[in-house]
């Protein structure tokens, strides 16, 4: 088997207001089921290595975690190479329950934005209130970025991680580049 190749081969752009970097491949498992059921929770916690996050939030450690996607869906994040094992575990633990676990690692691209102006770069593209008192680390927001779907969170202040579909990775990379172009400071936050 070849080495996995991420959507943009770790493309970077540090010309503008923030640095933009494609950081795949990241392991991702879509897990659907009854979020309140004990066996489901146990399986998810085992796979993600963190607790089940509340609505609209994510719990992330270095290279693993869980994001709340919808009332019946979680996104497990892990190392790319760990996906097969975790999928096997999940399918085993949930075999007797109505649940769905699928690998979506290759279907996505992940970007990391760094810099003091990450909030305003995001505010140019997403219809989301990014005020520091409103959007805080720990929140996980699925929304629109320009004209495509995306989800993002802030692992810490001045850092944004963003997930989009693999097919729109180039669009998102270009879009972020435009939004962080020199001279486009907003001084909004």
């Amino acid at each position, binding site marked *: 088997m070849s080495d996995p190749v991420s959507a943009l081969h770790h493309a970077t752009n540090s010309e503008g207001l923030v640095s933009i970097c494609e950081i795949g491949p990241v392991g991702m498992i879509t897990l659907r089921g009854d979020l309140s059921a004990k066996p489901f929770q146990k399986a998810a916690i085992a796979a993600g290595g963190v607790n089940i996050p509340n609505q*609209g939030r994510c719990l992330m450690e270095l290279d693993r975690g869980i994001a709340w996607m*919808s009332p019946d*869906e979680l996104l497990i994040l892990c190392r790319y190479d760990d996906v097969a094992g975790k999928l096997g575990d999940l399918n085993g633990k949930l075999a007797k329950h109505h649940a769905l676990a699928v690998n979506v690692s290759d279907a996505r691209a992940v970007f990391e934005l760094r810099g003091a102006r990450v909030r305003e770069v995001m505010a140019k593209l997403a*219809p989301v209130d990014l005020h520091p008192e409103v959007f805080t680390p720990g929140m996980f927001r*699925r*929304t*629109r970025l320009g004209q495509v779907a995306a989800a993002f969170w802030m692992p810490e202040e001045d850092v944004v991680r963003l997930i989009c579909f693999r097919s729109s990775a180039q669009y998102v990379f270009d879009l972020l580049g435009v939004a962080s172009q020199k001279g486009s400071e907003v001084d909004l936050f």
Partner: protein
Amino acid sequence: MLIVSCPCCGVTAEETEFHAHGEAHITRHTVGSSDDDMETYLFMRKNPKGVHFERWRHQYGCGKWFLMARDTVTLEVFGTYPAQTTEPPADLLELIDAKRPGWREGA
């Protein structure tokens, strides 16, 4: 452009995250139904000037369908509620009664 609150994920966001899908609480007719019932099911839609119950999807968010009661003239939103129901919740109807007395005659 409206602001919509998704009852499924708790996000309040502008309309561009959502998609409207027409009238809510339509009864599906199928095999065994009369032609008239099929016509009603497939084609007959209310077009009220005022209170309207409609289907929406949080397209760029959690992806869930939900229902919304809205005034088509003032665009006031009376409330949103989950799609897994055949009629609006009683408390929402009461709220609309209070805000739009007599609306049911026109509905």
